């Protein structure tokens, strides 16, 4: 493994002009050239002025007629009004799911369930650009990420689990896998469609029906997915989507007729949800926060490591639970590494999410922008040294410059708390033991990164990381076949792979 190559990524810097010294950058200057706009057309997606709930296969208004606005965080414009579900609506959705589980989906042979899931995967592929544009408008993420990561991976998840639907006896040898029943699934705003796929695909493959609650700032791709279910002729009630505030999520969690709760989001809310199912027989999986260490040893190929660090923390504006938000650099290379990082930061393009050249788009909401701003201010106040490249931010919308902190102590809030924004904290170490100690010195344990050319060190470090996903000489890679989930307060249970099925079945004797 020692000689394995590291990630390569297309650089934004023109070939032949890759020497940092030739740009005279690294001191906060902007790149000395301009990019022409390259906007993706938004005509491909038709956003309706109003959306209802998707319950029992029908588009219905909230029982009290309530609505809320979903906003494009890059422009602050209202995109649509969305039904604000009431607890009565949540109850209706659970009943619809129960009915469908009993009457259609739960009794449908796995072979037939599989074909519905293949259909959904295909429709997502066919309508991929529509989903990508909508997702970028509702979340603020760059179109190149929604187009190349979120949507293809979402389709791939349905594709992967489709094939499991009629092969469950091979996933659990010697056991009969019985669906749990009705799953309540609550997903976050950072990868709305992808998280929907992570939740719905394994649940349906195993024979469960679902009630899904998207985040209140990003409901649109889930509501467009309702249309995919209609196109696929999925039996009514197999997938139900209720939009609304957090209380609706808790109404689902505590609903007596729900058998399984799956949540992706903050550790704080995860604890409330775990308390909500205490004393019941409900299954629970939690995918919560993180504060991943990205460890760079002195023998790592630095240019590739820089790309991995940038991808690790600035991908999706850093609004990623497994983001590599703590850079642990070996002392002997910290200076050249920081220089290269600063140079690379100056080439990052922040701006219109629908521009195909944008690297960092808009922060998802005003409240998230405020949280990031507050934590960054705490970093400065606690004595860390802040660096931000000079780049113009759009006049409107919720934007934040890619930020780098050096002189960070482990006790600083920016080294302990999940910022969920484009903010990197740099710490240093001398020995591998110190790296392990610092990397694991967190209540979280979702992911970790290791950069070194030495194979035996990779394997040893991977073993010593108390984290569910370890990326060696790469970062932020995802795949439907690859289990994902945390240690410690990053949650429990795995999503993806064969292991992802386990959370949606009860195993009985043959």
């Amino acid at each position, binding site marked *: 493994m020692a000689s394995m190559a590291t990630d390569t990524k297309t650089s934004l810097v023109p070939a032949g002009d890759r020497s940092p010294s030739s740009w005279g950058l690294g001191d906060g200057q902007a790149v000395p050239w301009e990019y022409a706009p390259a906007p993706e057309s938004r005509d491909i997606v038709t956003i309706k002025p109003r959306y209802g709930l998707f319950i029992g296969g029908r588009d219905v208004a909230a029982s009290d007629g309530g609505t809320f606005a979903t906003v494009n965080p890059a422009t602050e414009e209202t995109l649509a009004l969305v039904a604000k579900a009431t607890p009565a609506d949540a109850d209706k959705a659970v009943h619809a799911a129960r009915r469908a589980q009993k009457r259609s989906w739960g009794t449908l042979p796995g072979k037939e369930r599989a074909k519905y899931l293949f259909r959904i995967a295909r429709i997502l592929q066919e309508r991929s650009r529509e989903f990508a544009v909508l997702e970028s408008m509702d979340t603020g993420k760059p179109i190149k990420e929604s187009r190349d990561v979120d949507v293809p991976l979402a389709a791939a998840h349905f594709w992967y689990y489709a094939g499991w639907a009629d092969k469950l006896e091979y996933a659990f040898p010697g056991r009969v896998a019985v669906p749990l029943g009705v799953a309540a699934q609550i997903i976050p705003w950072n990868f709305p469609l992808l998280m929907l796929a992570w939740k719905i695909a394994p649940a349906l493959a195993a024979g469960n029906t679902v009630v899904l609650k998207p985040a209140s700032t990003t409901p649109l791709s889930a509501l467009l997915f309702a249309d995919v279910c209609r196109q696929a002729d999925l039996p009514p009630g197999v997938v139900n989507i209720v939009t609304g505030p957090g209380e609706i999520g808790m109404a689902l969690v505590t609903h007596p007729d729900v058998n399984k709760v799956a949540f992706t989001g903050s550790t704080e809310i995860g604890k409330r949800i*775990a*308390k909500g199912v205490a004393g019941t027989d409900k299954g629970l999986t939690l995918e919560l926060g993180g504060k991943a260490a990205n460890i760079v040893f002195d023998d790592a190929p630095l240019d590739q490591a820089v790309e991995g660090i940038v991808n690790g923390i600035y991908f999706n504006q850093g609004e990623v639970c497994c983001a590599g938000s703590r850079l642990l650099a070996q002392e002997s290379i910290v200076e050249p590494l920081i220089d290269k990082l600063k140079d690379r930061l100056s080439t990052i393009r922040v701006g219109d999410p629908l521009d195909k050249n944008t690297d960092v788009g808009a922060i998802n909401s005003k409240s998230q922008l405020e949280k990031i701003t507050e934590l960054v201010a705490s970093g400065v106040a606690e004595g860390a040294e802040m660096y931000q490249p000079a780049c113009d931010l759009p006049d409107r919308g919720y934007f934040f410059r890619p930020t780098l902190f050096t002189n960070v102590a482990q006790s600083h809030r920016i080294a302990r708390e999940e910022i969920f924004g484009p903010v990197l904290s740099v710490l240093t170490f001398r020995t591998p033991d110190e790296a392990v100690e610092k990397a694991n010195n967190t209540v979280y344990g979702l992911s970790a990164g290791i950069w070194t050319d030495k194979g035996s060190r990779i394997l040893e470090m991977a073993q010593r990381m108390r984290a569910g*996903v370890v990326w060696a000489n790469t970062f932020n890679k995802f795949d439907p076949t690859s289990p994902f989930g945390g240690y410690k307060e990053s949650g429990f249970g795995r999503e993806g792979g064969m292991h992802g099925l386990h959370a949606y079945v009860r*195993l009985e004797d043959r």
Partner: protein
Amino acid sequence: MATRARKPSASSTSARTGTARAAATRAQNSAVAASPARVEVRKTYKLYIGGAFPRTESGRSYLVVGDDGTLLANACRASRKDVRDAVRAARGAFPGWAAKTAMTGGQVLYRVAELMEGRREQFAAEVEAAEGLRPAAARAVVDRAIDRWVWYAGWADKIGQVLGSSNPVAAPYFNFTIPEATGVVGVVAPETSSLLGLVSRLAPPLVAGNAVVLIASEKRPLSAVTLTEVLATSDVPGGVVNVLTGFKKELVPVLAAHEDVDALDTWGVADEMRTEVETLAAEDIKRLARRPTTVAEARFDWLDDAATERPEWIAAFLEMKTVWHPIGG
């Protein structure tokens, strides 16, 4: 929680105690039963923390009586400080235990069964007295407990292959998933089945590589204590298993709320305590292994191999770790 039987009156204590002790130690005494002058040497039942046998730091004890109400022993009534000491011992022992090779771990656990085999008669007498079983039934329970320990010990070098995977990702990466021990596991032992239930819940987290703090059956703690004497003379390192006796109402909430405990087996938690305990455990996202509410603890059939020999019971105390590396030059 009070002991079920009434405390025997002062006048009848010694006579009834004598009867129960005779039953509980029939095997050891049989050789000298003919000699009426011999005064029995009684055992002090102590805690097991960090490989040592301390009394509770609180200096408290409680009466343990047999199924027929006879006095069996004064057991330690452990305190919250004992819980904290046990968790600390477990945390200290965890890295070394988890780092043992799978084959070594399996052999160490198998040796526990070898030593249990040598104490069959003692365990049978304790189970008989505690659970009110006939001698033959008690012996069958002990035999099954030993066999179950062997069944779980054999998983040590297989669970990684059965639960791990190599994942065919759609890009040039080598990607694999391996199970690892969760860490420090709290086990609330079943209340009714004092040895077989205990073994069935203790062996899975142990074979997974975890260190355990176990709260014994409150009413029937003696075979748990005897098992610690087996563990102490086996090759299981001190601190890997720690056993406390006492009142579950006092001890379980402390264990459930302890932030250095990573997972909790609530099988032996009384139904009326369950919501409180799970709510405490939620505060630091502990993994829970729960008895279904539809399963009455006292009626669960621990002799049913299919229901109790399950790799899922091991998996409940494992974390899946997935590692990625690029392929290509």
